[in-house]
């Protein structure tokens, strides 16, 4: 297998883009990414997207995007893995380059959630669950996360405060992120007093509904200098799967797909969890951030509340978590989220993250989840020397 580099990242601001279609958003991110490279056409495009057919009534997104963005006759495929669609697209892009089948690959994601009323968005997102079982009983995606949060609070004897403290940190980080949907700070009191969506989850525990596109340009590591002046190495990449429904898991507070995928990715990158300098984790809801950190092996189980309070996850802390503001405050255009995470890390490792920058990271890890972690996609990036 060939080693793989990411030579560029392109992102749109996450927002309610009433004025742009799926293909316009993706093309905008792709043009931004190509601008810093010597590439004008890709050999293959892998588009992560979850809700196009539900909310935009559009299928065949791969071809539509290759056509609209000027990349005919490249191979172009839409990949759906719920909120991990872009993570799955990046893994596919990696396999395409590593195998030698393609040289210049675009991997990314695009999502437009603002097309319809919230109840239809809630239903569309609920399809990440087992529809004939969980959604049948009216279990929204928020409520499935709320089941985990309630259990976490009972198990470790904590109240909603540490979750609100995490939300405050995410908003603080997002306040200097030019791509963030919610670039403003909040107070602990505001987070704690916001209304319940699915108790114990309240408004400020939740990622917002928004639109966006992010793309990465991938090529063989050995050829990276031919296409761009700066690049990062994909040092480890893996995915794993767990039961789709939450109740079938022996341990509901351990994301086994994340644990297994992370262990494989650490091994591939020949590093230990403590070698990671910055993480972008899948905090759709604050609880998912907590169990993600504990399943990645970077935080001991039940200790996240303590570390949040001690400031460990701040940009200048021992383990910077989501300097972008995470899904919580940067935003969660679901099928594009995994590409935003890897794009943010690419900027970090190139020392190009502006006010989001953490001090000289060597390794960054992105964790992108499908549903309630029925799928986990882990990508470890390494600074190229």
């Amino acid at each position: 297998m060939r080693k793989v580099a990411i030579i560029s990242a392109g992102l749109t601001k996450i927002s309610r883009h009433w004025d742009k279609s799926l293909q316009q958003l993706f093309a905008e991110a792709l043009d931004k990414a190509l601008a810093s490279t010597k590439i004008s056409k890709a050999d293959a495009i892998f588009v992560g997207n979850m809700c196009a057919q539900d909310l935009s009534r559009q299928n065949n997104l791969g071809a539509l995007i290759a056509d609209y963005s000027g990349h005919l006759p490249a191979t172009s495929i839409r990949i759906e893995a719920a909120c991990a669609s872009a993570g799955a697209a990046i893994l596919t892009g990696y396999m395409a380059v590593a195998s030698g089948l393609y040289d210049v690959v675009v991997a990314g994601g695009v999502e437009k959630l603002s097309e319809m009323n919230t109840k239809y968005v809630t239903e569309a997102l609920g399809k990440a669950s087992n529809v004939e079982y969980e959604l049948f009983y009216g279990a929204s995606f928020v409520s499935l996360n709320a089941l985990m949060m309630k259990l976490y609070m009972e198990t470790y004897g904590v109240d909603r405060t540490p979750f609100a403290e995490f939300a405050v940190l995410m908003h603080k980080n997002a306040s200097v992120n030019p791509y963030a949907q919610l670039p403003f700070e909040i107070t602990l009191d505001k987070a704690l007093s916001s209304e319940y969506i699915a108790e114990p989850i309240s408004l400020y525990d939740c990622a917002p509904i928004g639109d966006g596109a992010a793309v990465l340009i991938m090529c063989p590591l050995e050829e990276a200098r031919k296409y761009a002046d700066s690049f990062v190495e994909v040092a480890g990449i893996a995915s794993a799967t767990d039961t789709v429904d939450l109740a079938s898991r022996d341990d509901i507070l351990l994301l086994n797909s994340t644990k297994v995928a992370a262990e494989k990715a650490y091994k591939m990158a020949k590093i230990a969890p403590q070698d990671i300098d910055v993480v972008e984790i899948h905090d759709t809801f604050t609880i998912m951030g907590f169990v993600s950190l504990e399943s990645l092996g970077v935080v001991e189980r039940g200790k996240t509340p303590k570390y949040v309070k001690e400031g460990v996850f701040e940009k200048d802390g021992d383990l910077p978590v989501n300097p972008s503001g995470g899904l919580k405050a940067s935003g969660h255009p679901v099928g594009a989220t995994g590409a935003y995470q890897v794009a943010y890390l690419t900027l970090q490792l190139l020392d190009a993250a502006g006010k989001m920058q953490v001090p000289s990271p060597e390794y960054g890890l992105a964790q992108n989840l499908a549903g309630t972690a029925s799928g986990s996609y882990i990508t470890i990036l390494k600074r190229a020397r």
Partner: protein
Amino acid sequence: MNLSIPCYWREIPYRYRLEGVKCDNCGKVMYPPRPRCINCGSSKLSKYKLPETGKVLTYSVLYESPNGFEYNIPYVIAIIELDDGTKLLSQITDCPPDKVHVGMAVEAVFRRVATSGDKGIIAYGVKFRPISP
């Protein structure tokens, strides 16, 4: 949710009668049933009727719903740990949301779950209600 009528028919054994499967090899109980064991991969499984009583392991009170559940708000989704240790997801019924608590003893009860629009089919399922002391 608007699902086709066969979608309801084919789910009757597990949805109405709480029928799962148990692995003959490792003893793992699966609900909903699968054709192979999610633990050991064995295809030697036997039909297994779940107990109809248990306790609330965790729950959530919903104030926003997926399309079709607007009129149920606020309603309670829970994971119930049945008497044999098997966990399943359902709604808690016949109980004010603020009276539900972790550890509450509950029993299965046949209930209407949702209707597809004004003239669509009515979906039934098994919800759980408190066992009166």
